[in-house]
């Protein structure tokens, strides 16, 4: 049987973003793959060299647009490392609430796009309905539906609004009930189980060597989470554990990666409820923007020779910013801003995972790794 290269993309309804996956097929079996990225390469790293530290936060939201808050927080922790700023504890709790709500929203978007890949079209409207609930909460916090520009160097831009705690508790509790609906829908669907179990095996050691982290790695049976291994923020004060899946002998398949994200949504929802209880000074007090309880004074210049870096647990893996100080404006702008995107490293690995399976398995495998091309192409 003759082998041929098929090009999936850049415009393709199932690639979760704008990239090309060139697939070499022998009949119906995938023999080789080659991903082709760069269709939305915007040169953010170069643009950041001409922006203030506060202005770059708006760019970081737009890196991975499905989970904007995690990226702007990832950047802000790196800036605080560079400028050596101490953040008040209440601000850390508010940041944690924002990040975990965003993680839920990101996983919902993934699930809403993964269902149609497998063929289950109704779960898309269900997940987007729940995502609207989370986006309402995030809109109250940040001001916009998608790109919030929420953290500031030294804290957050504003406090929890009046009544936020009550609305958040109601919506998150409702969401915890709704998760069971999704699980019922998928676990009782034979087609979903056939299409995802036994497909796309990946082993933990191989994943670490390739640079994969986050839920994809935890689906392989190892509880490695940047929030516990390199602790930051107030994750050590909440009572939680990262969920781990029990994979099959050959490794984690698509079903394990699906289950881990559903469990992560549950854990994040419980973390939000607990943080609302434990926040210092209570969740119902309100501080004006700029109050030292939520925003510490921070220097705006980073002298040459300094650098800041921070590993952060993004919805898709371990993300990191490296900032070198001493740029234009006598240090008001970074000399170099370098961004580590988990998906940039995972997509070549996911493309390797597809080899040996059928063409029809490609959307299942690719979707289960949760690609987001915005952060890949920067």
């Amino acid at each position: 049987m003759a082998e041929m290269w098929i090009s999936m993309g850049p415009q393709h309804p199932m690639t979760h973003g704008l990239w090309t996956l060139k697939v070499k097929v022998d009949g119906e079996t995938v023999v080789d793959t080659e991903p082709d990225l760069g269709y939305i390469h915007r040169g953010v790293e170069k643009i950041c060299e001409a922006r203030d530290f506060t202005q770059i936060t708006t760019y970081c939201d737009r890196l991975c647009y499905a989970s904007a808050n995690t990226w702007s927080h990832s950047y802000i922790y790196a800036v605080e490392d560079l400028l050596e700023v101490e953040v008040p504890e209440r601000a850390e709790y508010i940041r944690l609430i924002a990040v975990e709500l965003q993680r839920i929203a990101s996983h919902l978007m993934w699930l809403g796009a993964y269902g149609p890949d497998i063929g289950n079209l109704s779960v898309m409207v269900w997940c987007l309905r729940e995502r609207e609930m989370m986006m309402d909460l995030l809109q109250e916090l940040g001001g916009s539906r998608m790109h919030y520009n929420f953290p500031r160097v030294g804290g957050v831009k504003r406090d929890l609004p009046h009544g936020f705690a009550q609305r958040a508790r109601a919506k998150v509790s409702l969401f915890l009930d709704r998760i069971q609906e999704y699980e019922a829908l998928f676990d009782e669907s034979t087609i979903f189980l056939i299409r995802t179990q036994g497909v796309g095996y990946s082993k933990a050691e191989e994943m670490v060597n390739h640079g994969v982290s986050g839920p994809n790695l935890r689906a392989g049976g190892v509880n490695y989470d940047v929030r516990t291994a390199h602790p930051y923020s107030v994750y050590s004060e909440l009572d939680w554990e990262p969920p781990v899946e029990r994979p099959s002998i050959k490794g984690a398949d698509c079903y394990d990666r699906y289950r881990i994200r559903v469990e992560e949504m549950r854990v994040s929802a419980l973390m939000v409820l607990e943080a609302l209880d434990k926040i210092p000074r209570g969740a119902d007090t309100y501080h004006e923007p700029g109050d030292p309880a939520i925003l510490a004074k921070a220097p705006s210049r980073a002298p040459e020779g300094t650098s800041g870096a921070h590993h952060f647990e993004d919805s898709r893996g371990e993300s990191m910013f490296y900032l070198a100080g001493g740029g234009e404006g006598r240090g008001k702008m970074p000399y170099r801003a370098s961004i580590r995107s988990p998906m940039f490293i995972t997509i070549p690995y996911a493309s390797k995972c597809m080899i040996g399976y059928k063409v029809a398995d490609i959307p299942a495998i690719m979707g289960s790794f949760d690609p987001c091309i915005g952060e890949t192409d920067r």
Partner: protein
Amino acid sequence: MDGDGQNYSVFNSRMLVDTVGDITDEALKASRIKDVIGVLVGRVFNWSQRKSLFPLHLGIKCCALEMAAAGASRFDAERFGVFFRSSPRQCDVLLVNGPISKKFADPIVRLWEQMPEPKWCIAMGECAISGGPYFQSYNVLEGVDTIIPVDVYIPGCPPRPEALIDGFDKLRQKIIRIGAVPDDAAPESNNPIIIGDV
């Protein structure tokens, strides 16, 4: 009439159809019925075009999530006839929802050319209008209207799903106003996109 391959024994229906057609055409023109039919049919076509705009399933960047939210149950663009299709051959509207990088300039022009007439283009979000926050970038074109003629611009970063539905409404009003005039001239700027130039 007696060219090679002409078979006189077979009844030549094509000539009959042509002749009947010409006679009917002259009759309709003389009695002005042709104008009435033209106006009525044109209005019916215009109504069906604007009530069933099929955009292409193209998600470039963040505005694509708002496009997806517009198609979901809360904002529900499908009640306006907006239904996303995966193949450009079956679409009316090219909804550009993100910045166009130099690598994607060629594919998006190819998608535009694959779409059959009548077709329209909506530039959604700041990146598609003018390059957006990346207007200084070495890799982003300053707006999709440098390579594709745009009909409706929807500002916002990202525009809310209600704004997107309003943008479709503006496109509908434009279709009422101008009909569906095929645009058979190439875009004015024939400058090639030189990669490596800022």
